[in-house]
């Protein structure tokens, strides 16, 4: 079957007609070996390595004037092309959905993130089957395909063995997946998913996810080449760096000791000067000023200056390590002699750097997500509690830096992640490297490009048409525009001439160099009820939001708002935005925040959850809904003569979670209120041997968010101990850590058994039952559900 005879417009490709001769016996029959050959990729098709980093800013990498050493990024830049007007959607899942499908994020159900499956088409978090990722096209055209790292396109409630799996990576074009399904992961204790199963938390000493990702990628590429000498491959290297928690071994963060003592204001100025010198920012550009919502560095006291400097040291080390690991993959490809014909697209950030750490940054990002406000003073105290500054970046914390560092990292632009109305949220560096095809080395391209252009570009580059049908489903044409045209011509007129942007009410409309910025007047880290009330249905009229207008050919940084001088252009772009919004399912605006405004999914009726055997790695979004309720945990145990110890059931870790366990012969319960407080109870007497029933009862004070209450421990129905918990976690213990029966995988909930982790139960756990108390009234259930929906929406925003 030759390239010319294959109809690649419908996938899967039909079997070719048999060209041989078949007789009754082999006598006279003529074989057609092509009929059993797999579909070949187009002749000479390149390998493709698509690299995406997370929550990273335009002004972070050294190749873009930033303070973070990124030798791989710089090396590819010198050997390839630099795109300095590339854009994302301004949020994680939306960018990933747009990247892989080549279509606008709302149009594929990702106006919001995967953790929030909303009730409107633009916010369903369910990839439609008529908008399949381009990877499916490559897979159907002779490519080996794999994804490593962060996925973030599977709805929160579909991340277990019961599936459905049709939104997991394997179902949408990837032969192989190794990584995590959610929006974030601990880098020391991730809960790994491999293909369609959780393999759990790696137990190797010194495990570090970014390093392991590179190992797995290299291993996979080696394996493909070992088993298919001609077959091209596509690898999506989607590192969770630099999303929170900012975890990195000290040898990486220590490189940056003292490098940020000058503070964010000065750092930004330094970065800007280097950006102009390096040519990624025009020499006549203006640096945009700091928002009044952020503190001047010089106004800070000494404690905070040092804390904040440490936050950025860790962040920088985290990013440098990611770039180093990308370099290991590049080196492996080079060593195989395949870099020449490998198209590498390296995108630095799925949105601008994240401001979700609030002004102070936080020792544990889950405090933000749960709406537990901590003052500057409390943050310092909790840093002290969990090991001081040196522990920032280690496994004892789940840290996120200050919003002001993100702003500095988004130099020279305003704002950052979530803020789709401005370049700080949307513009990220992109490098394209393909020696066999791109003659120019070290060139700069300034045509407007967008994340939806990547898929069409890759298909054009490998010589595969966009299919009209996949698996019998007619496909919506991709919305992006290939930028292959720009590879050879620096001066080529840009072809992607207009683009809407919208995330969480922040809007923009780009057309022919003009940029209308229509920001919803909400500071990204403010999710308090008063703020949200301003945008409630019937209260907020988006037409009234202040509008800014920039002409980017003359104003690279969006420093000169010319809205007043061009009222006609403002009206033209407003009108165009509304048209595009309607076309791509952006409506209703704030469709991703329905949980805040009384549009709740039906309240689950299930109140009993039973676990047989040693079920492990239950995804954090799928554990029993014990939050804000009275509840019991009951377990049937077999305890051998001589006693037993270990964990009966545990969720997450010391930064938020619970564990029911046996130690020193006693039944114990530890509950971590997000690492802010710990509550411990224990039985007065040792557990008996034989068949034993144990129970932990939590009697909530009231059905209200974060309620306190009384814990009672029972052994064979006899009360044996207890105590009070002043607060409970209202929404979510962890962004990534799972629940386990019979052990506590990953970081332990109670550090007192850390030396025995995962502290597997030495008897037998026959059954564990959660009973989420059914005694609440319907009214209470609704009130609590309201809160839960608020919290989940908040989590989703920060994912």
């Amino acid at each position: 079957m030759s390239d010319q005879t294959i109809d690649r417009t419908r996938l899967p490709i039909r079997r070719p007609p048999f060209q041989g001769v078949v007789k009754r016996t082999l006598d006279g029959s003529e074989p057609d070996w092509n009929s059993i050959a797999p579909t070949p990729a187009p002749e000479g098709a390149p390998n493709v390595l698509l690299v995406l980093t997370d929550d990273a800013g335009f002004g972070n990498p050294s190749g873009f004037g930033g303070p973070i050493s990124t030798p791989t990024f710089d090396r590819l830049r010198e050997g390839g092309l630099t795109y300095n007007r590339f854009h994302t959607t301004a949020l994680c899942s939306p960018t990933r959905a747009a990247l892989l499908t080549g279509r606008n994020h709302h149009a594929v159900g990702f106006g919001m993130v995967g953790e929030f499956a909303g009730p409107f088409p633009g916010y369903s978090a369910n990839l439609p089957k008529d908008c399949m990722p381009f990877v499916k096209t490559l897979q159907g055209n002779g490519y080996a395909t794999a994804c490593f790292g962060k996925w973030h396109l599977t709805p929160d409630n579909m991340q277990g063995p019961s599936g459905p799996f049709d939104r997991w990576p394997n179902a949408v074009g990837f032969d192989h997946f190794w990584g995590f399904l959610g929006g974030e992961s601990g880098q020391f204790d991730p809960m790994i998913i491999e293909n369609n199963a959780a393999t759990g938390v790696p137990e190797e000493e010194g495990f570090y996810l970014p390093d392991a990702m590179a190992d797995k990628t290299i291993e996979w590429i080696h394996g493909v080449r070992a088993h298919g000498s001609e077959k091209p491959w596509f690898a999506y290297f989607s590192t969770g760096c630099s999303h929170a928690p900012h975890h990195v071994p000290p040898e990486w963060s220590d490189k940056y000791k003292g490098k940020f003592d000058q503070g964010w204001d000065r750092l930004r100025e330094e970065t800007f000067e280097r950006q102009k010198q390096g040519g990624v920012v025009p020499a006549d550009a203006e640096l945009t000023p700091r928002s009044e919502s952020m503190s001047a560095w010089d106004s800070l006291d000494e404690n905070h200056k040092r804390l904040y400097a440490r936050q950025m040291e860790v962040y920088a080390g985290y990013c440098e390590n990611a770039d180093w690991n990308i370099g290991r993959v590049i080196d492996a490809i080079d060593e195989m002699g395949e870099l020449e014909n490998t198209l590498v697209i390296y995108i630095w950030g799925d949105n601008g750097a994240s401001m979700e750490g609030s002004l102070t940054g936080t020792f544990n990002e889950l405090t933000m997500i749960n709406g537990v406000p901590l003052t500057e003073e409390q943050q310092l105290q909790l840093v002290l509690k969990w090991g001081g500054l040196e522990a920032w970046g280690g496994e004892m914390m789940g840290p996120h830096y200050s919003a002001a560092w993100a702003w500095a990292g988004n130099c020279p632009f305003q704002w950052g992640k979530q803020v789709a109305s401005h370049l700080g949220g949307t513009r990220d560096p992109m490098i394209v490297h393909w020696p066999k095809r791109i003659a120019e080395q070290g060139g700069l391209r300034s045509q407007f490009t967008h994340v939806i252009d990547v898929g069409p570009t890759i298909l054009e580059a490998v010589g595969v048409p966009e299919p009209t049908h996949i698996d019998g489903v007619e496909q919506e044409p991709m919305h992006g525009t290939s930028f292959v045209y720009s590879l050879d011509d620096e001066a080529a007129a840009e072809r992607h001439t207009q683009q809407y942007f919208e995330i969480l009410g922040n809007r923009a409309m780009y057309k022919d160099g003009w940029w209308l910025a229509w920001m919803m007047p909400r500071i990204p880290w403010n999710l308090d009820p008063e703020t949200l009330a301003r945008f409630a249905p019937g209260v907020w009229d988006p037409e009234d939001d202040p509008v800014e207008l920039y002409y980017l050919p003359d104003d690279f940084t969006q420093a000169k708002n010319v809205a007043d001088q061009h009222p006609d252009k403002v009206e033209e772009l407003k009108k165009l935005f509304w048209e595009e919004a309607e076309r791509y399912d952006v409506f209703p605006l704030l469709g991703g925040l329905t949980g805040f405004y009384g549009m709740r999914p039906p309240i689950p009726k299930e109140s009993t959850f039973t676990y047989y055997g040693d079920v492990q790695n239950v995804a954090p979004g799928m554990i029993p809904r014990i939050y804000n309720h009275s509840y019991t945990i009951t377990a049937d145990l077999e305890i051998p003569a001589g006693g037993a110890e270990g964990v009966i059931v545990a969720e997450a870790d010391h930064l938020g979670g619970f564990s029911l366990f046996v130690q020193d012969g006693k039944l114990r319960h530890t509950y971590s209120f997000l690492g802010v407080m710990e509550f411990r109870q224990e039985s007065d007497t040792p557990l008996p041997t034989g068949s034993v029933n144990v129970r932990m009862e939590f009697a909530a004070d009231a059905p209200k968010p974060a309620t306190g209450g009384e814990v009672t421990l029972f052994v064979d129905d006899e009360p044996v101990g207890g105590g009070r918990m002043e607060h409970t976690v209202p929404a979510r213990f962890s962004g990534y850590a799972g629940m386990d029966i019979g052990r506590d995988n990953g970081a332990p909930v109670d550090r007192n058994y850390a030396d025995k982790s995962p502290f597997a139960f030495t008897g037998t756990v026959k059954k564990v039952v959660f009973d989420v108390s059914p005694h609440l009234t319907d009214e209470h259930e609704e009130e609590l559900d309201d809160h839960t929906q608020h919290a989940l929406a908040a989590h989703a925003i920060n994912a």
Partner: protein
Amino acid sequence: MSDSQKDVLIAAYLFEDLAKKDFDAVLQLAENKTITVEGVVLVQKDETGEVNVTETGDHLGRKGVKLGGGVGLVAGLFAPPLLAATAVGAAAGGLMGKFAKHRLESGIGEKMDAALPAGSGGVIAVYDSDGAAAVDKALVNAVKKSVAHIDGGSAKELKAGLAEAQAGMGG
């Protein structure tokens, strides 16, 4: 030691040098006679995790010159072994000693050890309660503070005050 009402204060710091600044500030208050102190101790947890008393101050605001008056009692409450060590050290003009590896009579050492990460510091002070506002204002760099009030200044009361202050550092 006088019998007036006293405060027993424990303050924890992320950085040893900032603890030292506040320690100096409290002693300055004593030297200026703005407050009346029975004793002040600066402790440090080094990078290896060992806790040391690095400086002491007395009721006149003098640093580490001798184990006289209240400072000896205050320091001794934290570290009986230190008392012996510094008795020798004092003769040589110093007051340095360490107590991390010893079980302390008051238990304060162990608790401070648990509370402080490596590279951090603490200040422990006993002073007349009427100086509370001035002391509080002087401790600008403390990350966490806890104060207990006691009547009089006997060893027994001081121990109780320390235990109470230490309890206030929890959570």
